[in-house]
Structure formats: C-alpha cells, structure tokens
C-alpha cells in the first residue's frame, strides 16, 4: 500500500526533473497566457458590467457630476396705477449668509487638522455695523452647528456690496428678489404686500398672486471641477417667465390727496379711522381708496395689522342719512312722490313701539321732498318710505348694490347687511329708510351714488384696469355692463335734491362745496352698534357721499370718519369730501360746470381788490407818513411831490 504512492511521487519528480529548458519555458508561457486570459475575462466582464449592465447608472452619475441646474427666479410683475406710475416693483436685494464650519477647526478625511478660517466673533464684529445687527446675535448665529445660516435677507444691494468688499471667510452674498413699494404708504391697503419669499400675503398682491408671480426658469449647463462652464457642453436654458404686470384704476395723485385728507380728518377730529373712496362715474373705476391710519409695506411691523386692512371694502357701517337719497329715489321711481310733492311732517312719528323724531325740528307742518332732502328730515323720509313699503324698498336697495359684494375684484370684500323683508321687524322699514338697521361698505355707498350720478344706470366699481401683455400694451379686463336701476328722469330729480343738500340755505352739507363746481351730496351721521349686540353705543360714524359736477357728473366721492369728535357728518366728513373732490376734479381735468367766475367778473374782482389794497395803503400812509431822511428828498420824484 505504501510502495505505490511513493513510487508515483518519485516518478512525478523524475518527470519534472527530466524536462528540458524549452519545455519549462513553454509551460510557463502557457501559465502566463492562462492568467492573462483570466485577467482579460475579468476586465471584459467588468467592461460589460460598466458599459452594458450599469451603463445608465454610470451615465447618470457622470451627468450629475458635470451638470449644474441653476434655478432662475421669476421676476414678479409690477403694479402700476392707471397712468403707468409704479406702485410696486421688484429689485435685487442682497441676502448675506455664512457657513459656520469656517469658524471652527476641522479635519480633512485623512485626519489632517484644518484650523478655523477666522474667529466668529471677529467676523460678527465686522458685519454688525453694516447689517445693523447686534454683535452677540451675529456671533451666536456664526457659531451654530450648521452648514448655512442667514445673516440678513433682502437687504439693500449697497449693503451686500459693502459685505463683499470685506472679503470675510465663510461669508457670501446672494442676489434675491425683493419687493419694494416706491410710494411707501401710498395705496398700501389696496396694493398689499408680499412675504419674504415673494408670496402675496395681503391686498391685490395676494388676490393676483398667480398672475404676478410668473414662472421660474432653469439653466442646465456642464461645469468643470473648477467651476468654469464647459462651453462645448450641454447648455439648456428655460428662461423664467416674468410675472404679468397689473394696472390698477387708481390715480396716484388722487389717491395721495385722499390719504392726506383722511389722515387730516383723523388728526383734527381725534377719530379712530377715516376712509375715502373716489369713483369715476362713467366707468366705475376706483380712482382712490384711502384708509387712515395707514402703514408702510416696506417697513411693516406686526403691530400694524389693524392698519393693513382696506376699510373701504372690509368694514361695514350704517349709512345714516346718506341712505335717504336712495329711499327717495325709489319713491320717485315708483311714482309715489316727485321733487315738489308736499309731505306732512309732524315733529315725530310713532311706528310700533318706537318713536322717530327730527334731529332738528323744522316747525313746519309740511315739507316738499326737496326740503326733506335738504334738511335731512327723518320723519319726512319715513313717511315716504311707508308709502313705498317693505318689498319695494328692499328691492331698490338691493338693486343699488346693498347686501352683496360689488365685485370689485378685491379680496375680503364684505357684503354688507340687509335682512330680507320677511325677517324685518315692524320698525325695520322706518329704520332702514333713514339708514339704520342696514350696513354697507363705503365702496357700496359710493357705488350707489355713482348709479344716481350715472343717470340711474348701475356702475360696477373696479380696482383692476387690466394687465400688461407681452407686447407691453394694456390688456383691459372686460367691463361689466350696468343695469338701469331708476330712470334718468328720476336720477336727475335726485341729483337736483342732493344739490340742494349742499347749496341750500338749510343744507347740511354746505362744507362740501367745491369752488368752481356745482356739487351734490348728502351727509350722514349714525351711531355705531354696541359690540355686545345690545343696541347702540355712544360712538358715531360721520359720512358724506356726493358727486360733481352736478349737470354732468364725473366723480363720486364717499367719506366715512369713524368715531370723530364732533360726530356730525356735515362738520367732519363734508370738508374731507370737498378737499378730495377738488383734487380729483383737477387731476382728472374736469371742466367747471358754470359756477366758475367769468373772465370779466374775475378781472373786475381783481381790479376792485387792487383798488382796495391801494386805498388802504394810501390811508395808512396818510395816517403814518414815513419819516423823512436827514437829506430831505429821497430822489424819487413822486415821493418828493407827496412830501411837498
């Protein structure tokens, strides 16, 4: 058993030893070829794996290494007023950021220690005066365990340039679109504002966010490891689409005049707030919509929130006596009265359990409808409304726009409050007839007066005139057609009645007069409902609504002053109306309607004034002759003659 293996081993060794040199070489070459062949197989298999099996994966990796997709932010559309003046636009803001890793020692992957590029405190101290921030606050941010921290967002570009000039390690500046409002507080409640990320948050910025924001684009390109673009590589540009510009119906000059007047009223009458709406009669364009107090959207703070809202469309109030024009218009349209109809007006009238009295008793048993309007008679208006009835009064008030939004396109517009006649109390008819128990927005009130001014055809107020197309031209929004609410004859009669309220001897709106123009309008004074729903408070709302010129109405102005002192609409709101109406008529180049002075009369007046001044000066000289100088004569022959 043991002999055979030993012999076999011996024979193998003998065979190896017996090989010649050539045989050994051949065998070695064969081995090498085998190994090479094996290596080639391995390499080829790997090649197949890379080029065929995992080809897509490697191609993707390659693309990811070379390609850079840069998001191109869309520039938000601008907001213009009706004359193309910019109310809101976007500029490049400087966003300063830092990589806090630069301010702490680190190690490379192979363990080599890397010292901090700079001390966080030093960097914070250098940035603090430029960014206007506290050094400790900046230091804390720079020492955060993060790769990226904002140090300031959407700052002025000049600030970014100052920061870049410092060339601080770990600090960089990024261009970021920043919304800016060049007019500061001008039309702030209408235009609204955007958030820091460019989303519309308030006003028309929120309502038309989808139109204004545009679409971001992308730039796909290949970059070398050094960061340079590979000019022969892929370069696909999908340009961002600029947001669509919005054109408003506002007139910047009229808006400014309305804001100044509203702010003056708040200051002068110690009021809670004041709101003004200016409408163009023919189109319903809102030329101004001002609320005071206002705010600056460029530097808004959370405490301003009460000032953010557009009171003209969000706040409702009882219109008070301004409502009487609509009640009487409905009665005239129904043929119940005319402007000359006599109405018995007792000192008070009792309806159900309530007694309605005149604020200023007339002492006359009858008044014409014109007198009722001029003196703002409660009892007279209630008598007329009783003839009209619930259903018809409700019908006309709704037709004038009460109880539903005007459709101006503004976010958050209130509907007002007008109960259906089925729910009315026995006292609702007289109450609503004189503007109580019903609530409207100032825009609704202005719209109803615009209907009267527009010969009885309803006017739909609008804030947005249109958008700017790709060709830079205005694309107007479709105008809504109006309906005939009352006949032109009725409207003309009411226009005449409202004129008496301003120009009549006993008119309550005499302070609303505008030099050179015939003005029509109506005052209103209403107590505010108590906040707990238990009736009325002791606070008032003063209103005035009217239009001019009377014979060809062009402009409607409505004013509401909240909680003024004193509280009468004729004292508080009428002067605001006059100031704003005058500015609007001049800004819109409306010709005077005949009450202006003629040229000869103006020249006579000027001549008379000059004569008066001259005579007064002469009398003053006669009484107190000027002292003569030491030399006697002054050298002026006329003076010398008088001196003689």
């Amino acid at each position: 058993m043991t002999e055979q293996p030993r012999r076999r081993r011996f024979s193998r060794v003998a065979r190896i030893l017996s090989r010649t040199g050539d045989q050994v070489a051949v065998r070695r070459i064969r081995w090498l070829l085998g190994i090479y062949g094996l290596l080639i197989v391995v390499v080829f298999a790997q090649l197949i794996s890379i080029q065929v099996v995992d080809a897509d994966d490697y191609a993707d990796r390659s693309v990811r290494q070379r390609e850079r997709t840069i998001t191109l932010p869309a520039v938000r559309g601008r907001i213009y007023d009706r004359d193309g003046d910019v109310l809101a636009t976007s500029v490049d803001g400087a966003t300063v950021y830092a990589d806090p890793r630069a301010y702490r020692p680190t190690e490379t992957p192979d363990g080599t220690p890397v010292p901090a590029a700079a001390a966080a405190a030093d960097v914070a101290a250098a940035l603090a005066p430029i960014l206007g921030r506290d050094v400790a606050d900046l230091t804390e941010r720079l020492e955060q365990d993060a790769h990226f921290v904002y140090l300031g967002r959407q700052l002025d570009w000049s600030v970014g340039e100052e920061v870049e000039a410092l060339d601080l390690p770990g600090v960089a500046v990024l261009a970021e679109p920043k919304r800016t409002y060049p007019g500061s507080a001008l039309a702030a409640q209408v235009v609204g504002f955007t958030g820091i990320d460019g989303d519309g948050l308030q006003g028309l910025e929120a309502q038309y966010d989808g139109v204004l924001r545009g679409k971001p684009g992308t730039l796909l390109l290949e970059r070398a490891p050094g960061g340079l673009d590979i000019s022969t590589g892929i370069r696909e540009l999908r340009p961002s689409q600029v947001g669509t510009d919005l054109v408003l119906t506002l007139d910047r000059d009229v808006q400014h005049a309305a804001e100044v007047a509203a702010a003056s009223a708040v200051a002068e009458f110690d009021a809670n707030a004041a709101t003004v709406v200016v409408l163009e009669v023919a189109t319903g364009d809102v030329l101004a919509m001002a609320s005071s107090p206002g705010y600056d959207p460029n530097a808004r703070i959370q405490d301003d929130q009460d000032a953010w809202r557009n009171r003209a469309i969000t706040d409702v109030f009882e219109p008070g006596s301004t409502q009487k024009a609509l009640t009487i218009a409905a009665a005239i349209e129904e043929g119940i009265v005319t402007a000359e109809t006599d109405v018995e007006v007792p000192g008070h009238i009792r309806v159900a359990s309530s007694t309605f009295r005149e604020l200023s008793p007339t002492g006359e048993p009858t008044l014409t409808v014109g007198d009722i309007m001029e003196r703002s008679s409660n009892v007279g208006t209630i008598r007329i409304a009783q003839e009209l009835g619930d259903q018809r009064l409700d019908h006309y008030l709704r037709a004038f726009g009460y109880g539903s939004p005007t459709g101006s396109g503004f976010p958050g517009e209130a509907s007002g409050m007008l109960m259906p006649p089925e729910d009315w109390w026995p006292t609702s008819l007289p109450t609503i007839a004189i503007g109580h128990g019903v609530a409207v927005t100032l825009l609704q009130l202005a719209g109803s007066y615009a209907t009267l001014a527009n010969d009885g055809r309803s006017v739909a107020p609008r804030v947005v005139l249109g958008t700017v197309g790709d060709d830079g031209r205005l694309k107007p929004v479709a105008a809504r057609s109006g309906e005939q609410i009352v006949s032109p004859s009725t409207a003309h009669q009411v226009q005449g009645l409202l004129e008496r309220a301003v120009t009549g001897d006993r008119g309550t709106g005499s302070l609303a007069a505008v030099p050179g123009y015939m003005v029509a309008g109506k005052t209103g004074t209403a107590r505010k409902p108590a906040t707990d729903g238990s009736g009325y408070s002791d606070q008032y709302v003063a209103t005035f609504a009217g239009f001019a010129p009377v014979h060809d109405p062009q402009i409607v102005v409505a004013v509401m002053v909240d909680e003024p002192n004193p509280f009468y609409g004729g004292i508080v709101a009428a002067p605001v109306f006059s100031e704003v109406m005058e500015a609007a008529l001049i800004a819109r180049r409306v010709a005077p309607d005949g009450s202006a002075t003629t040229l000869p009369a103006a020249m006579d007046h000027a001549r008379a004034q000059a004569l008066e001044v001259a005579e007064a000066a002469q009398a003053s000289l006669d009484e107190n002759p000027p002292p003569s100088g030491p030399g006697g004569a002054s050298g002026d022959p006329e003076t010398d003659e008088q001196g003689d």
Partner: protein
Amino acid sequence: MTATTVSPLRRDRVRPAAPKPRPDLRVVREPRPRHTLAYALVLIVLVGAAVFGAVSLNALAAAASVEARTLDAQVRAAERDYSMLVAEVASLEDPGRIRTAALDLGMVPAGPARVVVLERSLPADGAVAEVFDGGLDADPLKPLLSAER
C-alpha cells in the same frame, strides 16, 4: 448587300511547354532603406500639432466661457441697475415725497383753486391746438407701453 464571311479561328494545338531553364544565381539587392526618422518626425509633428490644437481650442473655449460668464454678470448687473432706477424714479415721483420736499423748501399749500370761464373770443381761438391727452406714449419714462421694459 453581301455579308462578309469570316472563317473560324483555328486554335493551335497546345503543345507541352518546354522545361524552363533554371535561373542562374544572381545578386539580390538590399531593399531600399526606409526613412524611419522622417516618418517619426512627421508623426511627432502631426501629434504635436493635434495636441497643440486641442489644447489651444480648449483654452479658447475656456476663455470664451469666462467671457460668457463675465457678460452674464454684466447683464445681470445692468438689469439690477435698471430695476433699481425704475423704483428710484417712482419713489422720487411719489406725491408724498414731493409734498414733503416742497414744505421743507418753505413752500405752502395752495389756496382754494379759482376757475375762470372765458366768455369772449381770444386771438388764439379757432386755432387748432394740439391737446395733450395724458397719453402714456408722451412719456418715455413710463414703462407701461414700452415693449423693451
């Protein structure tokens, strides 16, 4: 017409070739020497030129890339300046700012406006006047109607 007759070609009988005499020994000349050096030089020149060309093109491409980035940055800066100037113009035109500036300069608000109605013909009456209608075309600063905004 008479056709020409052609007699068929007669083929000679193939005779067996006589055995060729074996060539005599002769001097074989050395093959002409190839100019390896020249080929190598040409090859080197070609390869060098190709490398130089590729490097040059790459350098030119890199330079063009840098220039493109510079131009991009200039365009962005110009657009930034333009948008800032638009905002600045609007800010300067703001009625509130103008009012404040006027008050600072000592101006006072105007008194009540007076309007005079012309009742008699003036020498210029009857002339066709160009009325400024407030159209936006009249003001090149207004971007609304400009396609190049």
